[in-house]
């Protein structure tokens, strides 16, 4: 009897441990533990089947379009049996109250592939459109909204291009809305935008004059599995060039790289500025990774490395040893050390 009771208790313990494990890892990847809903975007959207690049533009008049309820498969709203391209459009107002805050658009679960535009600027994409079709029906879409694309206190147009292969299609479920991060990071250089991306490994890619014009574009932060590299594990490089503004104080600067799965080396203008995890000393050597994927990266930039009012290049070497890969969670950008210290004091006060 005692033995039986004990074994049941052990089982319960085991199951709760498992649940714990899953919720933890879910948290780490979703990147939304600090997000608060500012404005729900559930409800009526303008809708049309088909594809036309003009529909991305805020100038396009969609008053003739159908209205459709979001979230819900379009099969339930009069488009039963339709597979292929479709567009969703909605105008929203973003109050200037949200200026300086990290804003995210949660588009929920989209079946199968999407591309999201704000005022004509692409802010995110998940899955692969034909001919390189790749479904991402089970990925939650959370896209960072760069502040420079927002028309504060005015009208802002969200346009969502969707491709559905078979069965139900469209923005099918989720907590659709505009979200804000808890602690605001007031970047001096915001790097949450499109970067150049190339799988494979070559240390020459760290140099600022390396030619990356043939590389693909990818969003940062977002796991590469949602951006056309579904089962990719291994090496990859990210590159981004940016202008470092002169209006900066002369103090130390910090490069925030958020969270990277699994290990990374970060170069600015060809010089190593930070690293998390141990890269193998020679090709083919065994790689050991543990909790590196969950480490928040804040690399202090050596004085004099950033060229003021000129082009600078960040190159990030990433090695993913399995599962999710890439620069998957923000904040990503450059801030002064003074602001970084304030940021952590604020995080501490908010109970972090």
């Amino acid at each position: 009897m005692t033995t039986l009771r004990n074994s049941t208790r052990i089982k319960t313990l085991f199951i709760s441990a498992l649940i714990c494990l899953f919720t933890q890892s879910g948290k780490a990847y979703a990147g939304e533990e600090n997000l608060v809903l500012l404005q729900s975007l559930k409800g009526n959207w303008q809708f049309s089947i088909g594809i036309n690049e003009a529909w991305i533009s805020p100038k396009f008049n969609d008053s003739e379009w159908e209205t459709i309820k979001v979230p819900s498969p379009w099969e339930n709203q009069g488009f039963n049996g339709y597979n292929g391209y479709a567009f969703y459009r909605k105008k929203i107002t973003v109050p200037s109250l949200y200026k300086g805050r990290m804003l995210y658009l949660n588009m929920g679960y989209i079946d199968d592939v999407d591309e999201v535009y704000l005022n004509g600027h692409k802010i995110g994409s998940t899955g692969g459109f034909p001919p390189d079709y790749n479904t991402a029906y089970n990925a939650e879409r959370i896209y960072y909204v760069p502040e420079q694309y927002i028309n504060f206190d005015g009208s802002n147009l969200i346009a969502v291009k969707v491709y559905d292969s078979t069965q139900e299609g469209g923005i099918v479920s989720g907590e659709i809305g505009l979200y804000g991060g808890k602690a605001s990071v007031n970047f001096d250089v915001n790097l949450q935008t499109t970067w150049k991306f190339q799988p494979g490994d070559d240390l020459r890619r760290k140099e600022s004059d390396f030619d990356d014009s043939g590389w693909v574009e990818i969003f940062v932060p977002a796991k590469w599995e949602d951006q056309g590299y579904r089962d990719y594990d291994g090496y990859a490089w990210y590159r981004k060039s940016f202008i470092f503004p002169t209006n900066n104080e002369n103090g130390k600067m910090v490069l925030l790289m958020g969270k990277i799965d699994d290990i990374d080396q970060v170069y600015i203008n060809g010089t190593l500025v930070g690293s998390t995890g141990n890269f193998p000393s020679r090709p083919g050597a065994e790689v050991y990774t543990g909790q590196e994927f969950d480490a928040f990266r804040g690399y202090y930039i050596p004085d004099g490395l950033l060229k003021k009012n000129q082009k600078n290049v960040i190159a990030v070497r990433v090695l993913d040893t399995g599962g999710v890969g890439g620069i998957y969670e923000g904040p990503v950008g450059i801030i002064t050390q003074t602001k970084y210290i304030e940021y952590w004091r604020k995080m501490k006060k908010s109970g972090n």
Partner: protein
Amino acid sequence: MKTKHYKFFAFVALILILGISAQAEDLRKIVSLSGNWKFSIGDDSKWANPLFDDSDWDQISVPGQWENQGYKDYNGYAWYRKSFKTGDLPANTTIFLQLGRIDDVDMVYLNGKELGGCGKFPPNYITAYNQTRKYTIPADFLKENDENVIAVRVYDSYLEGGIVEGPAGFYYDEDNDFLNLNLSGKWKFHTGDIKGWKSPDFNDQEWKTINVPSAWENEGYNDYDGYAWYRLKFNLPQNLTNGELYLSLGKIDDVDNVYLNGKFIGNVYDLKKDGEYRSYGWEYNARRLYKIREGLLNRNGENTIAIRVYDGQMQGGIYEGPIGIMSAENYRRYKNKYHTDRSFWDYMFDKFYRNDN
């Protein structure tokens, strides 16, 4: 049944031995540095300056990882600062700063002067999270009966960070009282192994200096394993010009060959008959006490000690005192103080357990 008993004895002996090795040195606390420190993330060389105003800094408790004190998920640089007052400082002895375990890299400044550090800061980062921090305080670094400021620059790569485990404070080794001539302090040091280095005529001016006693990992030789030599020249004071004398070299990790004026005077395995060296694997824990043969010392002029050390793994070097010359009387007092350490159980453990391994 017999095996069971044997295992039980071995276990009991193990516990006793662990208890004893914990109280190896007789360190006395002068100033405790546990408790609240000023704390800021970030990095700025100005923060080493004792005059820097840290009044608007955050507070943190030492020891303890910063992740548990509001800085969950923080990785990178951070500084700790603390002002403290000293009373009378013990004379003629070496004072140590202990900061326990720091995760991952540190550099310590005392009143604005660089004291020492472990590991390497980025870009060529090397962790030292497992190294116990113990730094020798040079004369004039610590102000007696006055305000002092300690500043610690820390870098954490990821996982837990900061001054994570104690003890934290200033200490001195009471066993230095057994020394008639204290030889701790700056010695000449060189990694590698060359036979000629034992000679009193060898010119070691180009060699680096190192604090003795101190693990060489605490002296900038991160992760160094292998051979290294220590050298020191000294003169005997007037009151030691006659009588039987002993050379105490504290504890050395792992194996030593000691030369005085070019002549071999002993190594750890010679200590077996005293019971100081017990069995294989005990080298690092044996108290080095070598009798100086009559006629070897130059009683009125210069003498040269040369010590060849081999460290197999982890911490290395002459890491614990007392270091110096003892009279026969002090030698006996010192031996007696520690002689009782070795109980019947230690004997059992060495005889039946250690040798089996």
